[in-house]
């Protein structure tokens, strides 16, 4: 009954504290929505972003036309033609366009000549045609790609790879065309065909998930909802420590210490209440991920099928977060110390833990450090559950770490509290 009374008392204190309610529920919901929106573009870099690229066609021949045709079907690049190289240069330099392709004059002619030379050399070598006198040495075609200095390396890679792929295809086609032309000269009546080079090799892209039907991927919502949910859950320390220290300063905690047998029920009741609040935060944030995100143009959060695993993970994170909050509350003597240290430590743990940016994009050293962040243990578990549809047994090591972390911090809190009660 003492524990229930403490839980009810904590409930009353919280519902009568508008600031605390805002901090616990409204702020995290706003945070997760804002962060998902802000990080939506970076997460879509490789997948959905369509980049406008200037195209200066100084060739005015078939190579330029072929390049335009090829990019027409590209999901990532939209060519905007402008043949004035000075203007193109200015537009990229000013940042209005992130990149430009400049196809030099006579590029088609040079490519044809080079193809002709290559085929001729092959046929001469095979003894199929007589060696003809070599015209002047041909220089290579130099296609220029201009980049805005602020362009991300990812975009540079995407654009360069796309151009290279297109040119390789065109080159192959023209060499084949030239080969057929020279063969037909030596063997009149040979019908010239246009070989279909597409589909010789296809690449199937899929995710190594058992839940392939849902086509899961790490998008902004899949990353930000669990990440900021955990951040909010660890921020439970703010009202927890604030209320605890306020009770200590006002003297109500002293009165409770003077009541026999109240120590454990008070700590347990507080822990149980804030544990419940953590779970409530989790449920609300997940519901926002599922139902609110699509309303603002983002993808809906996909949970995977292991609901039991999700519940266990949420409970484990709640234990770790509440334990940490209790330790901060008990250890520090003033609200300023507790709240400053507590909030900054959660920000640091979240940064190392992969809340702000995924761990895999961090430098190697930080990736090693991230293994020690409880937020990383939670986030990895949620990623395993949501994206990889993992069995609970696979996330057990991280869950154990979270529970042990919670138990150790809570035990330390009880020890510190007891040692300060009687001095």
């Amino acid at each position, binding site marked *: 009954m003492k524990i229930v*009374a403490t839980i009810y*008392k904590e409930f009353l204190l919280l519902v009568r504290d508008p600031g605390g309610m805002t901090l616990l529920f409204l702020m995290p919901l706003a945070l997760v929505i804002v962060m998902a929106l802000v990080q939506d573009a970076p997460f879509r870099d490789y997948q959905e972003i369509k980049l406008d690229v200037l195209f200066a066609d100084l060739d005015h021949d078939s190579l330029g036309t072929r390049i335009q045709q090829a990019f027409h079907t590209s999901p990532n690049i939209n060519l905007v033609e402008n043949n004035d190289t000075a203007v193109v240069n200015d537009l990229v330099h000013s940042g209005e366009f992130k990149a430009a392709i400049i196809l030099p004059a006579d590029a088609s002619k040079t490519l044809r000549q080079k193809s002709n030379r290559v085929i001729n050399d092959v046929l001469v070598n095979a003894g199929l045609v007589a060696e003809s006198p070599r015209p002047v040495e041909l220089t290579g075609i130099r296609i220029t790609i201009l980049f805005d200095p602020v362009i991300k390396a990812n975009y540079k890679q995407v654009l360069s790879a796309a151009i290279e792929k297109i040119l390789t295809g065109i080159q192959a086609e023209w060499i084949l065309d030239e080969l057929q032309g020279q063969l037909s000269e030596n063997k009149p009546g040979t019908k010239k065909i246009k070989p279909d080079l597409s589909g010789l090799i296809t690449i199937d892209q899929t995710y190594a998930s058992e839940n392939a039907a849902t086509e899961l991927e790490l998008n902004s919502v899949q990353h930000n909802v669990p990440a900021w949910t955990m951040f909010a859950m660890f921020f439970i320390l703010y009202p927890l420590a604030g209320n605890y220290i306020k009770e200590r300063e*006002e003297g*109500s905690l002293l009165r409770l210490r*003077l009541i026999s047998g109240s120590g454990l029920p*008070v700590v347990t009741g507080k822990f149980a209440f804030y544990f419940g609040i953590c779970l409530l935060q989790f449920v609300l944030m997940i519901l926002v991920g599922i139902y609110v995100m699509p309303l603002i143009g983002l993808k809906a959060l996909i949970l995977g099928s292991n609901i039991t695993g999700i519940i266990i993970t949420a409970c484990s994170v709640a234990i770790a977060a509440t334990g940490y909050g209790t330790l901060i509350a008990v250890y520090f003597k003033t609200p300023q110390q507790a709240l400053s240290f507590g909030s900054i430590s959660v920000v640091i743990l979240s940064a190392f833990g992969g809340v702000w940016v995924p761990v895999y994009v961090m430098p190697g050293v930080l990736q090693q450090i991230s293994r020690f962040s409880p937020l990383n243990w939670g986030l990895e578990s949620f990623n395993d559950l949501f994206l990889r549809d993992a069995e609970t047994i696979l996330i057990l090591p991280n869950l154990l770490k979270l529970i042990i972390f919670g138990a150790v911090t809570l035990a330390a809190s009880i020890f510190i509290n007891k040692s300060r009660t009687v*001095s």
Partner: protein
Amino acid sequence: MTNAIVQVDNITKQYRGSPQPAVSNLSLKINEGSVFGLLGPNGAGKSTLVMMMCGLLTPDNGSISLLGMNVKNKGAAIRKQVGVAPQEIALFPTLTAYENLFYFGRMYGLDAAVIKERIESYLTTFDLKEKANSRVQTFSGGMKRRLNLIAALLHQPKLIILDEPTSGVDVQSRNVILDFLVELAAKKTTIIYSSHLLAEAERICTHLAILDAGKLIVAGTPGQVMDATPGHENLEQVFLTLTGKNIRD
């Protein structure tokens, strides 16, 4: 012969970093049913002594027993029969008077029906019944002080320790509190009353102890204390003679 409900034997307590002990080789005996005034200027060692009686501080030397049990190893059992009203308003400001008292009643391990009955009775006695459902943060200083006292009485302890129970209250509230304490003492509840207010002590205390610089200066009934320092008209004059007129911080 009256039983000693509090027995303090040669206790000393020195805080870390402090050049002087807060309490030095102090011995006291408080009999059952008495209203014992613990008097002294600031820094005399009253609060340290009270904290040690409650088991929140451990003496460096000596022993304290309350209700026949040693505080050192029977703290929990003792606290069940002791009510403490600290000098701070040890209540939750955003809870109502009723919610505060009900919560503390629960923590004392009382049944809901018993708590309700006692809350009703005490709120009536202390003229707070109409404010039962008002939040404590809206109360005046006197109302808070009365509620603070009720919270220490809910489990009907045998021994009540009051630290400045009338601090910052108006004359009316003070009168209600003091009358109640006299009434309580008549029912054989022992009261330890720590205060600066010597007129109050003179009015309600059956026994007194004056402390200064951690040492016991004098102890006995008010009459015995007055007799021990002849030539004074009231307790305040005795107090100033014994503890000096220098301002203490």
